[in-house]
């Protein structure tokens, strides 16, 4: 079986695929509307978000501390970020003309619109809070004002213009299912020795 169904379209995961995305981040076909605005398209690399924003001067060390907190939180409770439907996160800090910027890149199986309120709730309730509090212009009332949080993220999203997938459109759950199946087969073969 070499096809996977995603959003009603059959995709062949054995065929690597690339997608060029026009300026603005949306494809020419009709843009799908989400609750908080237009949804950026699903690509061979699934959904993604790339946020670039200036950090509040002097807060650089907070970002490194926050990364450690996330590491500890996930170690203590491995499913803490499950609601985000993530594949990968990559965060960077970099300087432009003496000012420090934060770049958040995440690869998700769902568009940003769907579960962001859940993410806000989890970050607010778990005490993890969010590293975004150290970005200029981030709404101070984010814990009680999910629409303001979402607006900030949308305003600072820099859509990509090329995305590539070696195994396109495959979800994290499908990958985990396949690996579980492989493990089950190995176990079965061991039992038959």
């Amino acid at each position, binding site marked *: 079986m070499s096809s*996977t169904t995603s959003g*009603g379209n059959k995709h062949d995961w054995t065929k690597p695929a690339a997608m060029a995305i026009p300026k603005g981040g949306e494809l020419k076909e009709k843009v799908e509307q989400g*609750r908080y605005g237009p949804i950026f398209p699903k690509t061979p690399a699934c959904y993604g978000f790339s946020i670039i924003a200036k950090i509040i001067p002097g807060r650089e060390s907070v970002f490194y501390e926050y990364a450690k907190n996330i590491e500890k939180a996930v170690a203590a409770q491995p499913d803490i970020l499950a609601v985000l439907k993530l594949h990968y996160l990559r965060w960077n800090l970099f300087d432009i003309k003496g000012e420090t910027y934060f770049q958040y890149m995440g690869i998700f199986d*769902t568009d940003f619109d769907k579960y962001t*309120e859940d993410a806000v*709730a*989890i970050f607010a*309730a778990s005490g993890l809070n969010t590293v975004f509090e150290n970005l200029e212009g981030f709404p101070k009332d984010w814990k009680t004002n999910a*629409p303001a949080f979402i607006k900030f993220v949308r305003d600072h999203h820099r859509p990509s213009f090329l995305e590539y997938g070696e195994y396109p459109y495959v*979800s994290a759950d499908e990958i985990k299912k396949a690996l579980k199946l492989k493990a089950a087969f190995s176990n079965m073969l061991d039992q038959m020795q």
Partner: protein
Amino acid sequence: MLELDDIQHILLMRVPALTGRYEFLSFRSTAGGRVWLSAISEKVQSAADVRAPDEKQKRWVTVAFTWNGLRALGVDEASLATFPEEFRQGMVARAEMLGDTGPNHPDNWVGGLASPSLHAIVILFAADEAAREQSVMEHKKFIAQCKDIEVLSSLDLQAVPPFIYAHDHFGYRDRLSQPVIEGTDEVPTPGSGPPLKPGEFILGYPDEFGPPANLPQPEILSRNGSFMAYRRLQEHVGKFRDFLRQHGQTPEEQELIAAKLMGRWRSGAPLVLSPDKDDPQLAADPQRNNNFNYKEMDPQGYAVPLGSHARRMNPRDTAVNMNRRRMIRRGATYGPYLPEDAAEDGAERGIAAFVICASLIRQFEFAQNVWANDRNFHELGNERDPVIGNQDGTLEFKIPKRPIRKKITGLPAFTTVRGGAYFFLPGIKALRYLATLDGAR
């Protein structure tokens, strides 16, 4: 402490109505709207009014407004701007995101519901036909006396026989799983979870996250109010019964298919607790009929398919943040009953219901956009809610089964949205405030 005397009764209780009528109104002038409102608000019962047992009470009145309706009553622009964006835009503008496309599109809606001149709804619930006629006559007389009130349309409600318990035209028992609000004397049935903070449903109270925030202003207008999403959903009974016959050889198999689509047997018995055969006694027992979960009791969906209606609309322990997604459902059926052995007669029949919640975008729109219409909900790939989702004949419904699942392709649409609107349901004091606003235009 809930201010029961200031909360419209529909928010907290279900009245014993077997019939009723919705009337959809437009105010041609601010002054006319206010005259009408100041009189009708005397008839609107609070939760406290309805709580006192009174067998003579056979008629109940609820009033709510669209954003355009609040403007038509003279609410100033500064105040109008404090209402949430989705309510300001209205259901028509949100159609695509809600899945209201194709035959469900607002262009096809009836009764003037898609019109910006829809300003208000009056819900006249009645215990019997005579009581309904009395309410309808009185309201008609009253509107004739007011100037500048236009009735855009009305819809007569009618319970579906047999009247042993509430059910829809497809035969599914309704009203089995409703959230309980903290501060009421209602006790949650086993499996229903603890009572929820009132702010999830009533504006001005703490919600599941904390103190109230971002409420519409002024406070007198929003306090003890709520938002209501109205949906008029036509049920294609003939098509539904044909589908059951097509996929089930025997009446038992047909019942099982019906149960798989819903997640409960048509009697209301939960499939998780009775996966192989119906159990009407279980269905009728409130101590048992909601006492189940999915994550531990049915993780693969062998009893309740992952894409079934009930599992989508209330994923229970398989969703995070569930307490912030709950909704209160009120409403009724309309249209003539189609007897079990009768052929489809083409008459319109269905459900005309309200989803009541503090945040339309977080509660109602999330349920509609993600739970009902996300084709990839629970990694299902190519499915939408089989009962209320936007079905265009290209989607599937998968029924997990050992050794291999049953996959139904080309699922037809059993329902069509015939109308809808977002309403603000003010508290009793707010109704009076709206009726006496200064600065009539």
